[in-house]
């Protein structure tokens, strides 16, 4: 007997949601801190956290994050 049409739809939506959740989990786990600078003309440069420039950038970013504070829960 064929499954009811809404069951097929629900299964499909659940499948997509599971895939999306797994993708977000992988992304969170794999993403490391980074500092990226963009220059006129489209050139971009990454700076490692353990480099001198990277360290300065992360300290500056940390201060700004403190200034911004936590987002109030709505």
């Amino acid at each position, binding site marked *: 007997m064929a499954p009811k049409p809404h069951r097929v739809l629900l299964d499909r939506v659940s499948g997509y949601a599971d895939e999306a959740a797994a993708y*977000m989990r992988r*992304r*969170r786990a794999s*993403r490391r*801190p*980074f*500092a*990226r*600078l*963009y*220059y*006129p003309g489209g050139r971009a*440069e990454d*700076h490692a956290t353990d480099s001198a*420039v990277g360290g*300065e*950038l*992360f*300290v*500056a*970013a*940390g*201060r*700004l*994050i403190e*200034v*911004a*504070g*936590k*987002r109030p829960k709505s």
Partner: protein
Amino acid sequence: MSDAQASGAVSGEAAEAALAYLTEMSPDLRGAAILDSEGAVLAPADSSGHWAEGAATLFEAADRADGEAVEQVHIGTEQGEVFALRHAGLAAIAVTERFALASLTLFDLRALLRELAGETPLRTFTGPEDGKSPTRPADGEG
């Protein structure tokens, strides 16, 4: 990046309205600031000193990295993400939650600075009316 300066002085009121609009439409945004070419904070009026100091430190470090003035900065940390953008003599700084969409955030910041700089004068921000959310007039209005 356009090196041209903003066509006129940007008022703090316009910057506040633009910032309110950005906050309204960016769910991931924790805080943001708009600065003029001197590094003075146009918005937000409160805690402006902290933003000015933080922005100056960030741009200083970024400019020193390669001896050239940066156009955009994107830093991702465990605590949040920081975006900074310069355009037409103005600068915008935004702090977001982690994993905010970078391209969208930078696009919004750039659009905001363009409007404030007067490059698209028909789409200027208006302040909140009747205590409601800030709005932008539709194309062709105003």
